């Protein structure tokens, strides 16, 4: 990272095993789990063709879970000097003593082999300077200024390392870098948007993203109002991933499944969705890779959630797996977890052709660049609402004919993803609950419930 206190953070990363040993020693005979996360991040934000915010942060956070005889307590802190550690652990042990017994509490996980996974750490991405970030903002801003457009957006990079260790011998470590270029362009009353996140900054197609957002903004000027109602929609990957990630998370979370709150309850092995829809959670070597162990240090496994429209299986942690009389799939969140396990590395199987091919095959429909402020109305049906944003277009006889004013959808997504007509051939990285790779979709009979003024 840029020269500064990063040296202190690097030292902490190097010393993490020593810190864990000190914590285990202070914890004594009780079971003890340490989750340590060290992160350095920086973000340059621009608006109105100028840099509006420019920030950097360094943090090192420790989460310690103590278990003893059916009792548990958790303490979080960010100061790891000897005195601070002692104070924190003594306070945790005091809480533990006063705790009620929980008959369902599981002991800490024993160590299990964890696959190495893909390399997700890139030194160059970790060390990008403020001048580099400002330069990326300036490339777009200067081009926009020349053509009377207004640019807004962010360029962000970070490096992080996470360790899960316990005094049963478990020690798992993951590090990764991330860079995101997210741009919005305004052209009078027209808007365009593009975004890409990558572990390696060299995988971000800056020029392509900038050009796409600028063209969309120019093309969406003077949008026309159309009547709300049911339309065929072509969802670009980011729009599709926004709702598909909710379908995956609310449908395939082991705890919601155990509680009878998921649309897949009683439907395993049944064909509920379009045969064109296949989704796998795969942190190991999928299109959206990540940490190869979960937040209990257990190995992540590949889980097929939906195969050709057939509901396959939810994801589990040790607790929900025990209740469902099955094995953990390695999807635990930090414990204890109110939400329970969720899929966080979703790969949606691509189909054939390009986005342009989806448009060409549409007699009458609406092309959606992005959704905004999506939210759940009824989680058991994955009934959602949200707005279109930053480029919504009418498609007629295989061509984009005019931009339309933004629309609100209110739609049962189980129904929507049983109405898939086509899937594009390329899955691209999308922002979602975790990592996700998603293609574009064409869906018939999608419900828009109202329109807005712009």
């Amino acid at each position: 990272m840029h020269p500064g206190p990063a040296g202190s953070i690097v030292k902490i990363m190097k010393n993490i095993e020593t810190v864990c040993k000190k914590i285990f020693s202070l914890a004594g005979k009780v079971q003890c789990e340490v989750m340590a996360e060290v992160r350095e991040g920086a973000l340059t934000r621009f608006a109105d063709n100028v840099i509006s915010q420019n920030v950097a942060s360094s943090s090192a956070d420790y989460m310690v879970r103590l278990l003893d005889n059916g009792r548990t307590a958790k303490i979080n802190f960010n100061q790891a000097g000897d005195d601070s550690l002692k104070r924190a652990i003594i306070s945790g042990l005091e809480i533990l003593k006063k705790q009620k017994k929980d008959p369902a509490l599981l002991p800490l996980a024993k160590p299990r082999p964890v696959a190495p996974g893909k390399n997700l750490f890139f030194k160059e991405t970790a060390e990008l300077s403020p001048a580099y970030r400002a330069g990326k903002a300036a490339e777009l801003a200067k081009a926009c200024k020349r053509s009377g457009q207004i640019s807004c957006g962010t360029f962000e990079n970070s490096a992080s390392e996470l360790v899960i260790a316990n005094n049963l011998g478990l020690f798992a470590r993951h590090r990764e870098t991330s860079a995101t270029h997210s741009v919005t362009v305004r052209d009078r009353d027209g808007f365009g948007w593009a975004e890409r996140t990558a572990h390696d900054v060299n995988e971000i197609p800056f020029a392509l993203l900038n050009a796409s957002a600028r063209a969309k903004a120019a093309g969406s000027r003077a949008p026309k109002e159309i009547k709300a109602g049911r339309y065929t929609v072509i969802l670009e990957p980011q729009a599709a991933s926004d709702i598909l990630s909710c379908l995956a998370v609310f449908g395939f979370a082991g705890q919601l499944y155990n509680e009878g709150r998921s649309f897949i309850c009683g439907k395993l092995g049944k064909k509920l969705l379009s045969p064109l829809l296949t989704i796998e959670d795969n942190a190991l070597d999928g299109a959206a890779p990540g940490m190869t162990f979960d937040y209990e240090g257990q190995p992540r496994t590949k889980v097929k959630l939906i195969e050709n429209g057939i509901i396959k299986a939810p994801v589990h942690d040790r607790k929900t797996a025990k209740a469902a009389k099955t094995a953990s799939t390695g999807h635990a969140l930090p414990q204890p977890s109110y939400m329970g396990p969720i899929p966080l590395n979703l790969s949606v199987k691509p189909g054939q052709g390009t986005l342009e091919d989806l448009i060409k095959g549409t007699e009458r429909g609406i092309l959606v660049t992005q959704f905004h402020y999506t939210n759940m109305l009824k989680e058991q049906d994955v009934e959602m609402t949200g707005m279109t944003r930053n480029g919504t277009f009418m498609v007629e006889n295989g061509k984009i004919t005019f931009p339309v004013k933004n629309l609100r959808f209110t739609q049962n997504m189980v129904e929507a993803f049983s109405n898939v007509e086509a899937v594009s051939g390329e899955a691209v990285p999308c922002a979602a609950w975790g990592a996700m790779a998603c293609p574009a979709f064409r869906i018939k009979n999608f419900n828009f419930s109202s329109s807005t003024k712009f």
Partner: protein
Amino acid sequence: MFKLAAKAIEIAHKHKAEFGDIRIIEERRQNLGVKNGEISSLTDQVTLGYGIRVLCRGAWGFASGSVMTERAVADTALKAIAIAKASRLLMAGRVRLAPEPAYTDFWQTPFTKDPFTIPVETKLDLMFKTDAVLRKNKKIRVASSEMRFIREHQWHMTTDGSRIEQVLLSSGANISATAVENGDVQTRAYPCTHGGQTLAGGWEIIEAMDMPGHAERVRDEAVALLTAPACPAGVSDLIISGNQLALQIHESVGHASELDRVLGYEESYAGSSFATTDKLGHFRYGSPIVNLVADATLPGGLATAGYDDDAVKAQRWHIVKDGILSGYMTNREFCGKIGKKRSRGSCRADGYSNIPITRICNLSLMPGSTPLEQLVGEVKNGIMMENNMSWSIDQKRLNFQFGCEIGWLIKNGKKTKMVKNPTYQGITPEFWGSCDAIADHQQWRLWGVANCGKGQPGQTAMMCHGSSPARFRKIKIGMHG
């Protein structure tokens, strides 16, 4: 802590920064939860760190750290200065801050019982007692009780000469029951949804809630919703109560009146606002009975403090007065763009690691003069909705749709049968323009929003919205896909 803070100020002066500040923050959080007879969370968290802002030759830089040594503070200040230098590559003009006097002060949230001195056993006992009542029906698949306490100790020092120490305390709790039957899922919560009710103060807030005393009703209503008819679709008169009206204020007025959004500085993420500066002072935002007041001095308010994170003293002002757009949430950087010489003091940061940004202050709908019985009695065919379940609004804060936890039909002035999955939809100024009655001060209460997200990197802020139930005519209800 001010000794450590002084190092950052020294560096800012040495590099001729027009402005610089450091906020050292020690935060303690305690979260407790009981779910289905088991402890779902019990976390005690203490963090300590600092955020340093510098304005050098008209450009901003910010860096944060948590290594508590003079050397690390100095390094972080230099990092902020290097970032400010990079910001100069792309600027239109120099950032200039509105002046504010220098203050040396100590301010603390008033409370009667420090929640961190209440034993964990006492807190868990209360939740297990509540949980047992919530689960006394087999249709309840999820019973949940939660509590949370936050104490934020701030030391804020600026190159202007301000030296402000504040201790902000908040306490919150909620209970909920989720009933499941035949593929239907219905939840009822008390006092409200989405992390429950949080206010500024101590353990006395939790005592006043009487969680076990409300558990039976919450449980029974969740079960009753399973067999209740669905909210009808159509156009109807609507009475909004509970925390739903608070969220309506938050989303359609609070965010819409943040001046950074209005000026386009949030366009890439949260969006902008229809309430543009050319409308200030004459745009009809709502009917003449609609008065919305921002107030950083409001007792119990989560945005109540002596000073904001720009070191501006707390104030009270109208956002909407007699239905007309009359003000914005402002900070020292942007207030000059609407001709104001002084910031309203709505600039806050999430913890030590984030830069202060324009935030919604406590924002309340002033009570009307209509008794609640009359509010209902004057409705021939209508619906009453309570507590938010789902929220969505477009990026200019115009088209919104909300889903609520529970509804009751109103026929000939009487509240009649319960309906489930109620929703309503509207366009902000048309919606507030249809407000024809607001219940009187006896129904007015404060609702906490403890999880307001904004900014990049994402920040969470807390604020309150006070309201009495209010009536809106001819609203579109009952949208489902």
